[in-house]
């Protein structure tokens, strides 16, 4: 968003005036909240915010201009915080409320939504975590992996699907010339932690907390489920995908991962299999491809929109 005008226009007689007015108000309501969730007392130029708000917002008999603007400021942040919490339960559980709140406020201040849909809100979160490690220290590497994993879930949930390639097509073309695309909703992840099992544990814990919320002694149950154990480092290869429109995580053998990665980046079938390494046996390749074909993972090469994620 471009910098707002010094003062909101007192008259709106043109589209330019309307744009200036909207820049002023949008800048005000998207400014980060204070620590106690209030509108900041000073405007970006140092003037008192109550004076700035009074320039363009009418007070009424119950609320000042400042208070009316503050309602929109709070609603903006609470709505976006809720959206990120919904999409990133694993990251929230790993960082805890306070650090997660600091991270998301800083992220949204740097990267306000540029999409008509809140679905895209976390698309740049992993990169931001790596750019601003102080916000997640000492768990930056873990936080970045969880953010990457949770964004992959969004892609798998409603990303596009291409027509599944037929087995006969594979048989028709020599492996040295055959290129196969991966479905755009699949993300291949090479992780330093088993994030898949961690996210499953967090979701299970959240479900139990939800079920327990109306029972006697719910507070004790909440304490018991407060935290899923953080994952210990372990090299993990996983594909986040969907099958019959349900979300799945599929663990991959490292060699299988390398083969898929090579196919996704445009290698021919023979080169991709070679990328798996010398220990890969023909029987393994046959079994893997059989499984991937059954899951509908392959499409024609060249019409994909996949994100590099490993």
């Amino acid at each position, binding site marked *: 968003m471009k910098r707002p005008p010094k003062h909101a226009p007192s*008259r709106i007689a043109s589209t330019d005036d309307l744009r200036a007015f*909207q820049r002023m108000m949008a800048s005000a309501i998207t400014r980060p909240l204070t620590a106690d969730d209030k509108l900041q007392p000073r405007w970006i130029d140092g003037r008192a915010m109550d004076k700035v708000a009074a320039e363009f917002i009418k007070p009424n008999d119950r609320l000042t201009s400042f*208070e009316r603007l503050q309602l*929109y400021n709070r609603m903006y942040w609470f709505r976006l915080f809720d959206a990120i919490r919904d999409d990133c339960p694993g990251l929230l559980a790993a960082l805890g409320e306070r650090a997660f709140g600091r991270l998301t406020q800083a992220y949204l201040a740097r990267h306000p939504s540029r999409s*008509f*849909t809140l679905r895209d809100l976390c698309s740049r979160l992993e990169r931001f975590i790596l750019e601003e490690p102080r916000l997640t220290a000492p768990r930056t590497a873990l936080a970045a992996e969880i953010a990457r994993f949770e964004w992959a879930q969004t892609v798998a949930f*409603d990303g596009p699907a291409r027509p599944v390639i037929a087995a006969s097509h594979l048989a028709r073309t020599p492996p040295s010339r055959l290129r196969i695309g991966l479905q755009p909703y699949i993300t291949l992840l090479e992780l330093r932690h088993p994030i898949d099992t961690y996210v499953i544990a967090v979701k299970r814990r959240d479900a139990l907390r939800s079920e327990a919320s109306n029972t006697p002694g719910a507070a004790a149950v909440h304490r018991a489920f407060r935290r899923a154990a953080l994952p210990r480092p372990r090299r993990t290869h996983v594909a986040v995908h969907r099958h019959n*429109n349900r979300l799945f995580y599929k663990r991959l053998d490292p060699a299988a991962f390398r083969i898929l990665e090579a196919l996704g980046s445009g290698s021919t079938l023979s080169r991709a299999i070679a990328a798996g390494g010398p220990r890969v046996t023909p029987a393994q390749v046959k079994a893997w491809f059989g499984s991937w074909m059954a899951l509908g993972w392959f499409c024609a090469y060249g019409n994909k929109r996949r994100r590099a994620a490993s």
Partner: protein
Amino acid sequence: MPANRFNGHSDYGIGIGLRVPHYSHILSKKPVVDWFEIISENFMVEGGRPLQLLDTILEQYRVVQHGVSMYFGSADKPDRTHLKRLKGLVKRTKTPWLSDHLCWGSVDGTYTHDLLPMPYTFAAARRTAEKIRQIRDYLEVPICVENVSSYAEFHASEMTEWEFLTEVVELADCGILLDVNNIYVSSKNHGFNPYDYVNNVPHHRVGQMHIAGHTKFEKYILDTHDHPVLDPVWKLYAHATRLCGITATLLEWDDKIPSFDEVHGEALKANEFIDGAKKAAV
């Protein structure tokens, strides 16, 4: 005016919003519902479960699209990518009309994801109407614009909200989605008579109505959609129905969503007021 050119000459009854907690009930029980309103943005995706579910619903129910991010009142030009996706969805649902809000919410391509009130000026009305015309021409479907609930008014305004709404829909030659709960909420927040609002909009342009619950706080009312409809809103709805005719009506319940039957039962209470309007007309 049950059927008019602003709602595609359709004659829809009482609908409810299609919401996630009700999916399994709807798919397994197949309840009789006049129509469902969908939030367009929830289905403007490229694949996966949302579109599969929508196609299943479309096999059995009438669906009307309601948007939350077109921002007719934003000074920015319409986003072509957004419009293209929306048109794809319009073709899929065959919605007889499409609604979105008389508000703004984005500037310079940054989105607030809120329905922000307009400054009620003639220049803003002209710009808004121009955008509605452009969007309708592209989408090739009638458009109804919905009045929003608001918590702020601006010094720059040159007219009342209902005068602004009238100015916009006359210039755009489009319909109105009259949200009587929003009128009530704004009337309490800004101190006007909600009946003045309903009395003074062009009734022949009303293609749909919304009803919903709200929450009262000490100094203001919030449009929370998490309660049954309150009595003053039902009374205002009855008044609007007398003036506008029996109109496609939708109950919005978006938070703390109870069972399907409870939501549907609440929506069907509108029939009492529709019957009252029929008797009054005889």
